[in-house]
């Protein structure tokens, strides 16, 4: 009688022990799940902050682009004006040069030929 009673106690003790170990294993499983979910959250946060960083960079860049446009346009205007001024200043002289050369004529015998003596 007392023997089976003792064995029963031991068996119960084993059961308890198994429960304790099982709890620990469940803890481990849960911890791994936690690792994944926490990592995911951290990653998400990181991504968000990177996205904001990039957006700030883009906004700043858009500013410089429109700046560049106005700068270039201004410079172009100045250059165009200079071109027209320069042209108007020199036009007459060049027209005269052209006209002079149109009538300038210097007839020469081709250099490979020589005069035929009668």
């Amino acid at each position, binding site marked *: 009688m007392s023997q089976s009673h003792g064995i029963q106690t031991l068996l119960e003790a084993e059961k308890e022990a198994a429960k304790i170990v099982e709890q620990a294993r469940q803890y481990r499983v849960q911890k791994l799940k936690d690792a994944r979910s926490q990592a995911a959250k951290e990653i998400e946060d990181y991504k968000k902050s990177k996205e904001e*960083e990039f957006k700030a960079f883009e906004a700043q860049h858009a500013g410089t682009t429109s700046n560049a446009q106005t700068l270039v346009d201004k410079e172009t205007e100045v250059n165009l004006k200079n071109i027209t001024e320069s042209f108007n200043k020199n036009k007459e002289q060049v027209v005269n040069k052209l*006209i002079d050369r149109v009538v300038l004529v210097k007839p020469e015998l081709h250099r490979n*030929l020589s005069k035929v003596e009668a």
Partner: protein
Amino acid sequence: MASRPLNDEEVLNEMNKMVAFIKQEAMEKAREIRVKADEEFAIEKAKLVKQEQQAIDAQYEKKRKGAEVAQKIAQSTLTNKSRLKLLHRREEHLQDLFSTSRASILALAKDGGRYVQFLEGVIVQGFLQVMEPSVTVHSRKRDVELVQQAANGAASTYNELSGRNISFEVEGSLSDDGAGGVKLISGSRRIMLDNTLDERLRLLEDRMLPEIRKDLFGANPNRKFYT
């Protein structure tokens, strides 16, 4: 081991000891498992996070580079457009210049003395170029007499320069809209030489472009080689 059977008290004692032992072992095993679990948790989490962070960083680096390149392209396009505008303006001015010149040459034929001299010159030049025994000299209708006169002088000058003789006929076949000058066609009608004022001006427009550019707009600061 005990040498005699144990009494009830001792049995209970041993039982409790055994129960305690079993529990103790279980607790220790559980503790080990938990500690390891914590370690693995930390490692796994750090690994996952680092992996993804690297991927994200690479992604954004690429985006950033793309944006930089796009900006450079935009800048380059602006500069190019600007240059084209400038060139366009210059071309407009050039056309204006040429049309003014074309209008001006019409006045040349009016200066009688110089015009005859000019005619003689271009006819000699034509003769020397064509080198044929006979040619037809085409002129504007209203220049026929002048050209006849000039061509006679030209024929003798031609003889002086080349020792050859040339016979010619004058035809007033060119339209009076032209500015003046002559066209020579060889006797066999195979060679044509255009020495009209219009054609000469056109040739000049083309050949003198570098010089015209320099005179109108200044030398090119980027040019490195001149013949």
